[in-house]
């Protein structure tokens, strides 16, 4: 018996690693990935980065140019996430199993959430750029639509987790739908929702950089500009500022989480 278990386990492992190997070789061939080049590029990048990719005294001159862009990007991410959260709250209340008004609302809002979550942010950026060109609104809306799907799903799960008990208790006392929402559902799920909201802001600042590179807005555009001019000292300063911003926001939201959860 014992032998059987060990052979079975070994065979299982063998099949698993063989499948991994076949998939890896297949992927390497189809993506034309040069394995050796890939790994040597790491050392090359480190050497190059050490000698070129650091902010020098001269690059500090761009600070007055970048700061407004950074501010714009951070504010844009916060505004997009906040507005998306408000809308996501409504959608999730309509879509959650426990608080939905009727089946049709639930299906519609779940459908909207799923559609928005799966449309790639690149597609949003492309469609929006056609109508809004290079204004901050392009980035704002791309981030907004992307967050809306994710936050609706997260909020819906939070509301479902809060559970039925308090809702049933309130229903028994004859409380109206809005009483139940404002007295039981929202207070109980608010901490978790704010935690998701803060997480989304962190993610969105990084995504805003991507949208910026694609659509030519915000801090992503600044990076792209210096990068394409081969002004790597300036580009590295942009990266450094993004890193500091993201870490500061992460620290703040971790502290908030510690208090509210």
């Amino acid at each position, binding site marked *: 018996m014992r032998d059987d278990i060990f052979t079975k386990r070994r065979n299982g492992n063998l099949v698993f690693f063989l499948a991994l190997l076949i998939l890896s070789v297949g992927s390497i061939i189809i993506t034309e*990935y*040069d394995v050796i080049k890939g790994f040597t590029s790491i050392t090359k990048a480190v050497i190059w980065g050490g000698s070129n990719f650091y902010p020098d005294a001269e690059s500090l001159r761009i600070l007055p140019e970048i700061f407004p862009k950074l501010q714009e990007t951070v504010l844009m991410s916060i505004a997009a996430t906040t507005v998306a959260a408000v809308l996501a709250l409504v959608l999730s209340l309509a879509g959650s199993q426990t608080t939905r008004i009727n089946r049709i609302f639930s299906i519609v809002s779940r459908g909207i959430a799923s559609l928005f979550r799966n449309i790639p942010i690149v597609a949003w950026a492309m469609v929006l750029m*056609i109508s809004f060109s290079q204004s901050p609104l392009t980035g704002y809306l791309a981030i907004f639509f992307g967050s809306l799907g994710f936050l609706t799903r997260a909020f819906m799960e939070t509301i479902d987790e809060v559970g039925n008990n308090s809702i049933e208790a309130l229903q028994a006392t004859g409380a109206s739908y809005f009483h139940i929402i404002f007295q039981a559902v929202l207070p109980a799920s608010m901490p978790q929702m704010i935690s998701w909201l803060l997480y989304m802001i962190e993610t969105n600042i990084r995504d805003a950089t991507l949208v910026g590179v694609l659509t030519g807005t915000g801090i992503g555009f600044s990076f792209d500009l210096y990068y394409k001019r081969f002004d790597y000292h300036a580009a590295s300063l942009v990266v450094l500022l993004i890193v500091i911003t993201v870490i500061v926001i992460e620290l703040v939201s971790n502290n908030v989480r510690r208090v509210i959860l």
Partner: protein
Amino acid sequence: MQFKELIVQETNNICEQLSSYEDRHTSFKELFLTKDTINFGPIKLLDRASIAMRTVILFLTVLTIYFFSTLDYQSIDVLKGFTDTFVNFKTMLLNPYAQRFTLGEAFYNVVVTLGLAFLTTLIGGIVALLLGLLAAQNLAPKQVTNLIKGFVAIIRAVPTILWVLIFAVAAGLGSAAAIIGMSFHSISYLTKAYSESFEDLDRSVIEALMASGANWWQIVFQAVIPSSVTYLLSWTFLRFEINFANAVAMGAAAGAGGIGFDLFMAGGFYFDLREVGFITYLIIAIAIVLEVFSTNIKGKLQKSI
């Protein structure tokens, strides 16, 4: 002595604050100071958590209003922009059509993107397995875990697109830069997930193995990894889904090829919304297949253990 005075002073402060909410100020104060079990009802208005939440909401609202009031609209007709977007969006979703490539070519490019995501996840998973072991508090000394956690946090702070572009300088634009660049975020994400799965392992198991004279590697391969393999695999699948979305984005923004590049060309170069719609549907279909696949695998793994 001093400490006691401090407590009395603090209590008085709280009661004073409460008086603004409570009419029966004195009776409450007596209650508060004499009895052990008290009704904390009115205090809830003041507890730290709700103050923090209100502050966060207020802060975010103010920043949002500030953003919209200082927004540079650059002579864009916002209303027209929205109606245009709506029309474009409708064209995109209701009339998808590909004219620059056949269905076969599109599928080939989807497979390229899947390949990019797979290699990224593989590299990320292997490195993260090692770092995850070193970052788990029950397996490594505190200094090492802190070092790894800090390292991983810095990696995560740099957006993926910037990692890819930085590597593109050394490796040239293409799949090599994209895979290595995207691996960084996978490493950071999976290290955190793996180390938390490892930390769930009961301490007594490790102690029992240590007492029997097992070395670190034996503990890892006989106890830690077998007991957390379900979590490891489901986190890795989840990351694969994320990496697919990332690979689409990197194809568009960093020339990594695959379906993302087609999407970028269709939208940013040819302005062909029907093609954007076609590619979007293709990506959504793959994303749904991956989600169903990973839910199934998760179910199966949980059943087998």
